[in-house]
């Protein structure tokens, strides 16, 4: 496949997929919370751009609504809420020392390969572009999980959680040109409620353990102490 022979829309989707994947890796190695949130907002913006590109090329109006939703939720509202929390709790100066960063990065790279590997059967029935898009979105999901495993701050966990949703949306837009409107609205509603609940949880966690380090949430376990 020669990329110059593809039409403009496909080229755009491929580049955006690559960029979205890149932002996931950037988040993975980021120890500063404010920068993490910024990269997350950039990922949201790329997602909104992808949606808008899809809407333009298909002249599908409901995708414009979905792009606007993504823009409002993932680029403005949720990053703003997280940023406010971080500033309020005075955590913007803390740098989280990420233990074995190299291993996490290598793990991330292998997750990406793994995504390509499991989705490979799809290529028999559709284009290589589709494989790329789906594999990138799956790896964004897996990298989001790895982010949650490797970071200890609750805020980073929320960013990981939301970036998993970003991966899902990317798959939904590129592979299927958006889910039916009612489903998309439902999912957006769930994301919004989840974001609000996370805000409430930060407060609860902070009042109960006086920190947002989730490693300190270790009272419940099966191991005898």
């Amino acid at each position: 496949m020669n990329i110059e022979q593809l039409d403009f829309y496909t080229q755009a989707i491929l580049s955006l997929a690559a960029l979205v994947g890149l932002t996931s890796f950037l988040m993975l190695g980021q120890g500063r919370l404010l920068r993490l949130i910024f990269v997350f907002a950039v990922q949201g913006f790329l997602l909104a751009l992808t949606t808008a590109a899809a809407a333009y090329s298909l002249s599908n109006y409901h995708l414009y609504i979905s792009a606007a939703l993504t823009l409002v939720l993932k680029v403005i509202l949720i990053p703003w809420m997280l940023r406010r929390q971080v500033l309020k709790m005075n955590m913007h100066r803390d740098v989280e020392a990420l233990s074995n960063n190299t291993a996490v990065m290598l793990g991330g790279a292998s997750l990406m390969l793994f995504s390509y590997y499991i989705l490979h059967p799809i290529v028999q029935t559709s284009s290589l572009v589709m494989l790329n898009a789906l594999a990138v979105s799956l790896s964004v999901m897996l990298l989001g999980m790895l982010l949650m495993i490797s970071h200890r701050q609750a805020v980073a966990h929320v960013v990981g959680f939301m970036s998993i949703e970003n991966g899902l949306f990317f798959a939904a837009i590129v592979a299927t040109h958006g889910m039916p409107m009612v489903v998309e609205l439902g999912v957006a509603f769930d994301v919004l409620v989840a974001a609000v609940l996370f805000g409430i949880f930060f407060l609860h966690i902070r009042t109960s353990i006086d920190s947002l380090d989730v490693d300190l949430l270790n009272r419940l376990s099966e191991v005898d102490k």
Partner: protein
Amino acid sequence: MIAAYLVLLIPLTGMAFFALAGHRADSGAWNIRLNAVNLIATLWLAINVLREGTILSAGKAFLIDPFNVYLIVLTAFVGLTTAIFSAPYMAHEMETGRLNDARLKLYHAMYQGFMLSMYLVLTTNNMGILWVAMEGATLATVLLVSLYRTPESVEAAWKYFILCGVGIAQALFGTILLYYAAEQIGSEENALLWSVLYENADKLNPEVLKIAFVFLLIGYGTKIGLVPLHNWLPDAHSEGPTPMSAVLSGLLLNDALYAVVRNKMLVDGATQSDMAGFLMMGFGLLSFLVGALFLHRQKDIKRLFSYSSIEHMGMMTFAFGIGGPLATFAALLHMTVHSLTKSAIFVTVGHASQLAGTQNMEKIRGLIKTQPAIGWGLLIGTVSIAGFPPFGVFTSEFLVLLATMRSYPWLAPLLLLGIGIAFAGLFRHIQPIVYGDRPEGQQPIKANLWPVMIHLGLVLWLGLAIPGFLADWFSQATLLISGSAP
């Protein structure tokens, strides 16, 4: 069809009512009334389905068939009895100062919100909305798990939120793949409607659906509490208020399994292979055995019974995985009797821990001597859940075993072993709790044990003789799921 809309509208109004009116002295009573009205609506719906067969609403948004209608009635029934238990339980928690008005308002509003999302999961015909409602159930219950605001409960709720949130995201990826496969056969607008997908299941791309099912099983499996994705379940069940444990165990787990089975029906149609069934059997058996083994290590009485839930959900997943009419029938029956028994057990456990002032099993003693109703309730409930005849759990477990011997005889010893281990695990803890001497100063409390008696009575009835109309109902559902009558 009006009945189906009513079933959804009543909890919606209830949620709005509790959220706007704030906490009142009679909120508990209103909660009971709302659930009672909804039980009547679901019964009406069930009669309609029995008479006319499958109902598809205009616009195909809702689908009521013999498989989900019995779960809808079960949901309404357990919802009602738990509400009856919850009213005095919450009043007691208010008296002891563990809760205040604002949290009770949240509790009642979210109780109705949870019921709404459960009904939506069951009635919807759209696989996307199914996902949204499933996630909605998490969101509705997550603040209830941390209702007491102790560090432990906040931790449990956080774990529940993150694990179920991430888990269920996998199910959305599976749903997107399903949609992708459906779009290829060209039905743009209705591509996520189950009824449409089911009709065209043989045309769906099997490769895509195989991958999709893995994600769907992991996603909804997190909510079922399948090992190794079960970690949230014992925490959330043990730290939340007991009525919540009862509905989580009795309803949420069932509905997640329902979602998996619905998807399995599509995948089976497309792949024409046992791949989905084998996956379910594997995870089911693993959960069953791990759940049974972990029963032995528990110290907290609610954790004990959450592991028992994992064990039983594992068995149901296993049975649905075997497929075939006998196993499917057994799984459907097991869903019913497990829900009824487990919610009854959680009701007695709630009273027992209020009585003893702790959930630590080493400190709860002499229940029968203190308050015979609670002690016997717990004992009989445990006997029933362990699978003793003449209770219904025995019947369904026996049928699962029979189906296993017929299809995969070499797995039967594992099942028997698991049942034995689970029995020992339950009784080594429960026996000293119900018998034994009464600790000094332990006083009987005001308890409403009607829900327990009704539930256990029904389980007994199902064990002795399944009434004709119910057997007929299960057979119709079995026919729908497995393709042939038992």
